[in-house]
């Protein structure tokens, strides 16, 4: 969760896509998607669908995720905690412990 939180908070106002989250967080998709579902249920994220008219390639529209203010607060708090915890020091989160 911490890696995903770090990726989401790196661009808190941007739209995040499943593929990008998986690649940038280094987590497996089988971990990231259930996590996204939980974050949606908690109200930390909102979701939406890509505008089909804006897609140039031949593919279906993708689902995106955006952080809510609550999500920024909650994930920010989790990330701050992780930065002070030695267990997460290997994750390159800017450990300050």
């Amino acid at each position, binding site marked *: 969760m911490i890696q995903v939180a770090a990726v989401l908070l790196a661009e808190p106002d941007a739209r995040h896509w*499943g593929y990008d989250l998986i690649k940038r967080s280094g987590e497996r998709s*089988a971990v990231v998607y259930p996590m996204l579902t939980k974050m949606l249920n908690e109200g930390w994220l*909102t979701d939406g669908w890509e505008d089909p008219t804006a897609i140039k390639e031949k593919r279906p529209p993708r689902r995106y995720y955006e952080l809510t203010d609550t999500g920024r607060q909650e994930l920010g708090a989790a990330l701050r905690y992780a930065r002070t915890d030695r267990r997460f020091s290997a994750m390159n989160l800017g450990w300050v412990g």
Partner: protein
Amino acid sequence: MTELLEVVVAWPTLLIAVTVFGFMPGFFLRCIVKIYPPHDPRRKELVAELYIYPRLERPFFVAEQLETALHEGMPWRFGRVLGHIPAVRRRRAQHNLETVTSFLLRESFGLDLPADQPAFLCLNDGELEVMANEFSISMDEMLRLATPRMYARWRTSPKEYTVMEWLQRRSHLRLQRYSKQPLPRFSQVPCLCTCDDRG
């Protein structure tokens, strides 16, 4: 070396490559997503994401989705089967009633009841009544007092949900399905449907 090249350019090899990296990922993924409930957006999402992946990674992505789908989708499938058992239905109904009540009490009145103080939402002749230990209030009274805060604004989310929408979103709303008596129609309460009444 020549033999290796011959293998690479051989028709069966080409056919296998096309099947493994072209046809099978999409086909199997579409089968896998059927595990999810019919209207689950993850069905469309995973299929759309497949085409973002490089072709070489697609078979592995599909294999991972089997794990995800089993983890997320199977509880729903089993839940439906178990839901036909009367004892399970009763227990779920009670759980949902407690969830609704504690949510209403917390959001509407700021009452955060400890877990050992059960709160029940009682349906008596269509009258919805909230009772929590000595705390008792009729539905009319509750709505009168609680209207401005009945909106589960879900904190600062740009979307605003009514209580019922919020509960549906959290998959807690099974009341209509499990309770024998019909629920009062929340949608008919104007203060719950318009955004103008927000406090």
